[in-house]
């Protein structure tokens, strides 16, 4: 029988291995699976390659994972925020590798990874430093850059509600990268604010069909990341 619900964030992130590629949803704090990331800090897998739009704020969530030296490389579009302190420090010290990817190209490369499309062409970055080393090709008189798909071993995603089949709905702009990341990972791990009975989510309203989801944990009171950052909260593993 199909039941993707697991009972804890710890159980949800089990098996994430050293050197894995991990996609992490969110646009800033909106849609960031803070509890799953903290469980990954506790779990301790290292040498991770992270794919995420940003590089974390303050000392919680993705910033805590980076600060705990678990991330060797990050693919993202905007690692700089007003309150990002951890990434800049490690980046300047040469202790974390950055691959800068334009936001739309990042989203499309992830979708391609989930959709079985190994590569596609986009007009973004043509004639800019970010196209260096990439194939440029003309279609209908215009130049395009070839971009390859991004896939991951794991995706950590936050959503509003899930059922035991793994069908997901999201909340407002917290949807952002969640749906495409669910598609592109071998194991997709979701934290849902609410787990609902099968049939509660109208089949017309499902945003991520369960086929893309492998584990779901209910986190009914997720952290408000901006509050944690404002309070200068630090997460460095399970506090005893």
């Amino acid at each position, binding site marked *: 029988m199909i039941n993707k619900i697991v009972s804890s964030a710890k159980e949800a992130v089990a098996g994430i291995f050293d050197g894995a590629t991990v996609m992490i949803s969110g646009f800033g704090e909106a849609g960031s699976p803070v509890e799953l990331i903290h469980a990954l800090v506790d779990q301790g897998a290292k040498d991770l390659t992270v794919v995420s739009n940003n590089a974390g704020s303050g000392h919680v969530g993705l910033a805590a994972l980076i600060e705990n030296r678990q991330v060797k490389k990050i693919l993202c579009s905007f690692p700089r925020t007003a309150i990002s302190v951890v990434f800049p420090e490690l980046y300047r010290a040469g202790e974390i590798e950055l691959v800068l990817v334009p936001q739309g190209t990042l989203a499309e490369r992830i979708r391609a990874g989930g959709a079985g*499309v190994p590569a596609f062409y986009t007009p973004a970055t043509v004639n800019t430093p970010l196209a260096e080393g990439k194939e440029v090709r003309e279609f209908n008189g215009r130049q395009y850059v070839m971009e390859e798909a991004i896939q991951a071993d794991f995706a950590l995603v936050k959503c509003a509600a899930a059922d035991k089949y793994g069908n997901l709905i999201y909340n407002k702009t917290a949807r952002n990268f969640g749906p495409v990341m669910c598609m592109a990972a071998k194991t997709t791990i979701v934290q849902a604010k609410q787990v609902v009975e099968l*049939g509660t989510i109208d*089949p017309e309203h499902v945003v991520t069909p*369960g086929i893309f989801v492998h584990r779901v944990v209910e986190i009914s009171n997720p952290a408000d990341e901006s509050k944690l950052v404002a309070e200068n909260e630090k997460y460095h593993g399970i506090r005893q």
Partner: protein
Amino acid sequence: MESDNKIIGWSTGEMAQKVAMDIHDGAYVNLGIGIPEMVAGFIPEGREVIYHTENGLLGMGKVAEVGSEDPELVNAGKKYVTAIPGAAYFHHADSFAMIRGGHIDVCVLGAYQVSEEGDLANWSTGNPNDIPAVGGAMDLVAGVKTIYVITKHTTKTDESKIVKQCTYPLTGKNVVSRIYTNYAIIDVRDKQLFVRELAPGVSFEFLQKHTEATLHQE
């Protein structure tokens, strides 16, 4: 020879049941139009299988009952169907993202021919008078992890459908994992055919006699 088809081996229902036995609990399955659709009726008790139909539904249920058909709820064969609780609707590009992206575990298809290397021909006889039509077959064989073929072992004129090389236009090359016929279940492995199970009354020699391709015993 024609009579062999009738008196020896499995019935179509038994073939469908054999396929069903090989579909694991929790699998996401796409069933081709026609005989493959019968597989759904034979999934053993205790296994939960979710059906994908490429026209935009995951969680397809049974065929709609007479009187409650909805012309806007159909399967890939344009039959009126139903949706189970926990189903999801989506558009065609998302539906084939599931297929091409390797998210569907098993697809069961019919065949005109299967080669000993696992090539499949099931979309065109190559007859220039036929209207060519491919549907989603090429996307399915290219994208789904495991392709099972269910087919009569021979044509109506007793020609082998399991051949050294397909003479009909290909749907895909090296794509078939297992073939279920009325005579046997045959695995395609390392570009060779291995007989996995013989139907009652079918000997290996009988099977080879009715098969153009070279068969191997496990």
